[in-house]
C-alpha cells in the first residue's frame, strides 16, 4: 500500500514537472501575443497595425522611421535627392542586398513593387487587392535608371511621399516570390528584413527565423513567433502563465496589475493617434461654432483618459497628435469648464439642443467606444444638451458615418492613426474632402484658410516650413472646433523581465531586431 502511494506521488510529481515545463518559452525564441491572426503577409494587401507588426520584421522599405521618431531615415535606399519642383525623387539603392529567396534586390525589383500595386495592366496586379495603394496615387511612373538607381515621377509635389514610403505599404517584396506564388504570395512571403518567414499555422502561429545575412546586422534572437490570441482576457492569462514573452495592446484594466508584478515590464509610447467625435457643422445645433465649443468645454476629457481609459491616453488639443513632435504647436486642450459651456449655449440662444450621437461598438483604434460614448453623453447632458445615442457594429458604423452625417446624426465617434500630419486633416477637414467627393469630412467642416494651409504644407518639401503650417492648422481647427477633441492614445505592451532591448515605436510598429532575452 505504502509503495503504491509512493508510486502515485512520484507519478504526480513527474507529471507536474512535465507540465510546468510547457509554460516556459525557449531562451532564444521570442513569443509575441498578437490581437488577431494576420490577414496576409503581403505588405501591400493589408491595412491592420496587427499585421504591420509582423511585416516590418520580414521586410524593409526604401526608407524607414528613425528609432523613436516619425522622421524618415535611409533603409534599402542609401540616399535620395528631390528635384527643385518636388516632383522627381531619385533613390540610390543599397548594393548587395538579397531577398530571403536568394534573388537580388535592385532597381527592377523596386519598379515591380510599385507597378504591381498601381498599374491595372501589370501581370501581377491581380495578386491584390491593394487597399492602401492610394498612399502612392501621386506616383506617375517608376523608372529604372541603372541597377542601383531608381526614380519616382510624381504628378504633383507631394510632401508626405517619403513618410508614406516608410509606412508598411512601402515595404519591398521579392518579385521572384510573387511570380512563383501569385495570389498565394501572402502565405509565402519573401523580403529582405531581419527575420525570414518560416511557418504559418492557421490561427495558431506565424514563425520567422533570424536572417544571418541581414544588411543592418543580424538579430540576436534565433526566431520570433507571433501568436494570435483574440480574446483579451485569454491574452492576459497567457502572459501571466508564461506562454508568451510580449503582449501588445494590454486592456487598460489589467495595466495596474502588470505594473505591480516584478516579473513583468510595462512599456508605453504615445503614437500618432487621435480619438474624437465628428460634429455636424452643416445642420442642427453644431452648425453654430459656439455650440461646438460648448461641447468641447462640457466634456471632462481628463476623466475619460484617466478613468475610462485608465491612463492609456492623453487629452487631445486638436487634429494633429503630439507624436509628430517636429510640429511645434502651443495649442492647449479645451479645459473642462461646464459654466463656460452653459454660457456659450446661452449666447448661441439654444436651449437643451437635441443631439443624435453615433457610437461604435468597437473598431480599430476606437479604444473603449461604448463607455466613452456614455461618459460623453453624461457630460453633455449636464450642461443642457439632450443626447440620444445610437450604437452600431463597426462595419455598419463606418458605412453610416463615411457617407456623411447629414440628415442622420449630429455627432459621431471616430479615431485615426496616421504616419504623416498631412493625412488626417487632408482627408477629414478640407472643404474638398466632403463625402460626395469621396473624402472623410463627414461633418462638412469648411474653412478656406485651412484648405489653403493644407495645400501649401502638402507641396512643400521643407520640413521646417511644413511644421509651421501644421501648427497653424492645429490652432485654427482647435478654435473652430469641428470635432470634439478627446484623446491621443498611448500604445502599450508588457514583456517579461527577461526581455531586453524592447521598445515601442511612435509609428505603432514593432521592431524586434535588437530584442534579446
Amino acid at each position, binding site marked *: 500500500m505504502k509503495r503504491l502511494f509512493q508510486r502515485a506521488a512520484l507519478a504526480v510529481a513527474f507529471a507536474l514537472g512535465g507540465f510546468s515545463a510547457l509554460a516556459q518559452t525557449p531562451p532564444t525564441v521570442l513569443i509575441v501575443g498578437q490581437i488577431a491572426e494576420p490577414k496576409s503577409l503581403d505588405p501591400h494587401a493589408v491595412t491592420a497595425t496587427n499585421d504591420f507588426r509582423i511585416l516590418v520584421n520580414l521586410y524593409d522599405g526604401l526608407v524607414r522611421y528613425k528609432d523613436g521618431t516619425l522622421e524618415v531615415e535611409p533603409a534599402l535606399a542609401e540616399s535620395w535627392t528631390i528635384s527643385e519642383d518636388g516632383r522627381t525623387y531619385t533613390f540610390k539603392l543599397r548594393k548587395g542586398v538579397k531577398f530571403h529567396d536568394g534573388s537580388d534586390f535592385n532597381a527592377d525589383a523596386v519598379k515591380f513593387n510599385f507597378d504591381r500595386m498601381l498599374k491595372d495592366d501589370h501581370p501581377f496586379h491581380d495578386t491584390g487587392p491593394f487597399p492602401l495603394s492610394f498612399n502612392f496615387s501621386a506616383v506617375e511612373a517608376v523608372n529604372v535608371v541603372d541597377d542601383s538607381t531608381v526614380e519616382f515621377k510624381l504628378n504633383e509635389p507631394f510632401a508626405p511621399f517619403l513618410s508614406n514610403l516608410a509606412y508598411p505599404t512601402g515595404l519591398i517584396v521579392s518579385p521572384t516570390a510573387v511570380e512563383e506564388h501569385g*495570389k498565394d504570395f501572402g502565405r509565402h512571403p519573401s523580403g529582405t528584413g531581419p527575420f525570414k518567414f518560416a511557418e504559418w499555422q492557421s490561427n495558431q502561429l506565424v514563425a520567422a527565423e533570424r536572417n544571418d545575412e541581414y544588411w543592418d546586422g543580424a538579430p540576436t534572437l534565433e526566431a520570433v513567433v507571433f501568436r494570435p490570441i483574440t480574446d483579451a482576457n485569454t491574452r492576459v492569462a497567457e502572459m501571466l502563465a508564461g506562454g508568451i514573452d510580449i503582449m501588445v495592446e494590454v486592456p487598460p484594466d489589467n495595466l495596474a496589475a502588470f505594473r505591480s508584478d516584478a516579473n513583468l515590464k510595462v512599456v508605453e509610447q504615445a503614437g500618432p493617434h487621435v480619438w474624437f467625435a465628428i460634429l455636424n457643422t452643416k445642420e442642427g445645433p453644431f452648425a453654430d461654432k459656439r455650440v461646438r465649443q460648448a461641447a468641447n468645454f462640457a466634456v471632462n476629457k481628463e476623466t475619460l483618459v484617466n478613468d475610462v481609459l485608465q491612463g492609456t491616453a492623453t487629452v487631445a488639443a486638436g487634429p494633429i497628435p503630439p507624436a509628430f513632435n517636429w510640429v511645434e504647436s502651443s495649442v492647449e486642450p479645451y479645459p473642462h469648464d461646464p459654466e463656460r459651456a452653459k454660457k456659450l449655449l446661452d449666447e448661441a440662444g439654444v436651449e437643451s439642443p437635441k443631439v443624435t450621437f453615433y457610437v461604435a461598438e468597437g473598431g480599430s483604434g476606437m479604444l473603449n467606444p461604448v463607455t466613452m460614448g456614455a461618459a460623453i453623453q453624461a457630460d453633455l447632458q449636464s450642461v443642457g444638451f439632450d443626447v440620444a445615442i445610437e450604437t452600431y457594429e463597426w462595419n455598419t458604423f463606418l458605412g453610416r458615418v463615411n457617407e456623411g452625417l447629414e440628415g442622420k446624426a449630429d455627432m459621431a465617434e471616430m479615431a485615426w492613426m496616421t504616419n504623416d500630419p498631412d493625412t488626417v486633416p487632408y482627408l477629414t477637414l478640407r472643404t474638398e474632402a466632403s463625402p460626395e467627393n469621396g473624402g472623410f469630412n463627414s461633418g462638412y467642416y469648411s474653412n478656406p484658410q485651412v484648405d489653403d494651409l493644407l495645400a501649401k504644407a502638402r507641396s512643400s518639401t521643407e520640413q521646417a516650413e511644413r511644421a509651421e503650417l501644421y501648427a497653424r492648422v492645429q490652432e485654427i481647427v482647435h478654435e473652430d472646433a469641428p470635432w470634439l477633441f478627446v484623446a491621443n492614445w498611448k500604445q502599450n505592451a508588457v514583456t517579461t523581465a527577461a526581455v531586453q532591448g524592447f521598445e515601442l515605436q511612435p509609428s505603432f510598429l514593432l521592431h524586434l531586431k535588437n530584442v534579446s532575452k
Partner: protein
Amino acid sequence: MSAYVAKRLLSVIPVLFGLSIIVFLVMSMIPGDPATAILGAYATPENVERINRDLGLDKPLVQQYFIWIGNVLQGDFGRSFALNRPVLDEVTERFQATLILAGVSLVLCSVVGLVAGVISAVRQFGWADKVITFVVLAGISMPSFWLGLILILLFAVKWRLLPASGMYAIYGGGDFKDLLLHLVLPALTLAVVAAGVIARLTRAAMLEVLRQDFIRTARAKGLSERRVIYRHAFRAALVSVIPIIGIQAGFVLGGAVYIETVFQWPGIGAMLVNAISTRDILLVQGGVLVVAASYVLFNLAADLLQTMLDPRIGS
C-alpha cells in the same frame, strides 16, 4: 438499412442548397461589405468601389450566387477575401481542429451525463442524487465562456498545470500528449452544459422506465438489481436519450464558437466569427456548409444508433 441511409444522405443535399441561399441573402442584407471591412477608416466610396471591382462584388447578387454555386459544383469554393487564401484549405484545416474538440467533448459529456443520470435515477432522492442534481444545475447555469476563463486562471495561471490556450505548444510540442494537455480545459468547458442536459434527461428516462412492467417482471424473475438496471432499464432508457445526444452534438458544435475564442482553439467556430465580422461571405458559406453537413451526419448517426437499439423503429 442501406437504402434508408442513402435516402437520409440524399436529403442533406436540398438542405445544404437552401442553407447556402439563406446564408448568401443574410450576408448581403447585413450592412457593411468586405471592402469596408478591409479598408476600415479608409473606406471612401471610391476605394470601396475599387476593391469591390477587384473582388468581383460589383456584379448583381443573383449572378454572384450562380457564379459561386457553379464553382462549388466543380469543387472550387472560392477564395477568402479577408485571408487571401482558398476557402477550402482554410475550412478543412480549421474543421479538423473543431472535430477533435467537439468529438472529445461529446464523448465526455455523453459518458459523464449518462453515468450521472443513471446514478441519480437509481438513488432517487438519496444524497448522491441531490449532489448530482446540484452539480448538474450549476453546470447548466454557468456561462461557458466565464467557466473557461476561470479554469484558465486556476489551471494555467495559478497552478501552472495545463496550458492556457492554443492547440499545440509553440515549442517542443506537437505530439499526441501535447494535444491532450491542450484539450483538457476547452473540452471540459464545452462538455459541462451538454453533460448536464444529458444527465437530467437520462435521469427522467430511467425513472420512467423503472416504473414499467417489464422491470417489475425482471425483478420478480429474481435477476440481480445490477442486471435489471444495466441490461434492461438502461438499454430501454438509452433509446430516448440517444436523439438528445444527437441534438447535443449540434449544441457542442455551436458552443465551440465561443469556447474556441476563449481558448484560442484554431477551429471553425472562431473562424466563422471572424469571417462574419469581416463580411467574408465565401468563407462564411464554406464554414456554414461544413458545420451544417456535420450536424446532419451526427443526427443521422444518432438515429441509426437508436434504430439498432430499438428494433421497433427500423421495421
